[in-house]
């Protein structure tokens, strides 16, 4: 329902959907990494990468089909991809996981290094726009006036910046 609204361009419902999905994706990412004996610190990277994929590939969801299998397939694909890229190396002793699992679903307050590093690698125009909207919380209009760009140019830079972030995630060899 919310995804349909998101596909129709309703930013508010779409944001709500992504927010509600995040804890589920986080649990799935942690479980996947945990099973492979990998650091939970990477889970937030996987969550962000999965959110980007859900966003950039949302046109592949058939609106008549149930959304669950679609979401699950994307999440699984991204966890597997992360495991493959990181070569399944073991990052932390098992004791650390107990503590982490007890944390529950709160967003870790740690810095998620990957996305920031990837953001640095974007062309400056895209980087400024993504930063203004994501970190400074600007709306499209505010970003347009602050960066002296047209709203259309902001939209294009934002979309390209997000797509470029997804590519950079994919090319990470952590």
């Amino acid at each position, binding site marked *: 329902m919310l995804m349909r609204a998101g596909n129709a*361009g309703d930013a508010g419902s779409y944001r709500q959907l*992504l927010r509600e999905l995040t804890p589920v994706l986080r649990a799935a990412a942690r479980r996947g990494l945990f099973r492979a004996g990998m650091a939970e610190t990477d889970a937030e990277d996987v969550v962000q990468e999965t*959110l980007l994929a859900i966003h*950039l590939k949302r046109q*592949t969801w*058939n609106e008549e089909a149930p959304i669950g299998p679609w979401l699950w397939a994307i999440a699984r694909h991204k966890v597997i991809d992360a495991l493959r890229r990181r070569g399944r190396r073991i990052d932390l002793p098992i004791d650390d996981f107990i503590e982490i699992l007890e944390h529950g679903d709160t967003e870790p307050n740690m810095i998620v290094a990957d996305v920031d590093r990837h953001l640095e690698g974007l062309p400056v125009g895209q980087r400024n726009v993504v930063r203004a909207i994501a970190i400074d*919380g600007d709306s499209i209009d505010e970003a347009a006036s602050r960066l002296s760009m047209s709203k259309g140019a902001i939209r294009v830079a934002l979309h390209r910046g997000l797509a470029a972030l997804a590519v950079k995630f994919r090319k990470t060899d952590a």
Partner: protein
Amino acid sequence: MKTGDLIRALAADAETRTASPQRALALALIPGVAIAFGLYFAALGLRPHLFALLGENPRLVFKLCLTFLLACLSGRFVLRLVRPGADARGSALLLAVAPALLAIANLVELLTVPAALWSQRLVGSNAIHCLESIPFLGAVPLVAALLALRHGAPEHPALAGAGAGLLAGAIGAALYATHCPDDSPFFVATWYTLAIAIVAAVGALVGARLLRW
């Protein structure tokens, strides 16, 4: 950047929509197939008396229908492959109808054609030409299909690439079928299959890299 920040950026981008895979594929194949038609008329051209032959040569009709059917079924199949979580088994099974029909046609040919003519029908007069022409005609549709499928999200990129190659190979074969004078199902089963397999293999190789997401 925190995850909440990223979500804010994604929501701000909600209005920018990209084309669905089937729309992208259709839009890419229109020029792709048009260019293949152009190459066809420039390099090969219609077989003489094609339309007159349609009425009296069931093998020719079968050959044309089969390649067209394969193009439709593989298009359907590949669109399933690029949707995460979609069940592609049904369309894969349906796709198997094409080789099944070809096998039946070969049986009929075995029963109706004297054994002395078999090798002549199998080798035909254009085997190498067929192996060259189908990939030649399928190349542009393959590029178009692969680029369009980047809008999709295949769980198995190489398989989706192979599907795109199958589709492009079938388009090339359908065009070539209107040129080639060899109509025997023996010929089609051997040389058309081999030529389409070449296109599918190229699609799988390229797709494994290009269709990752």
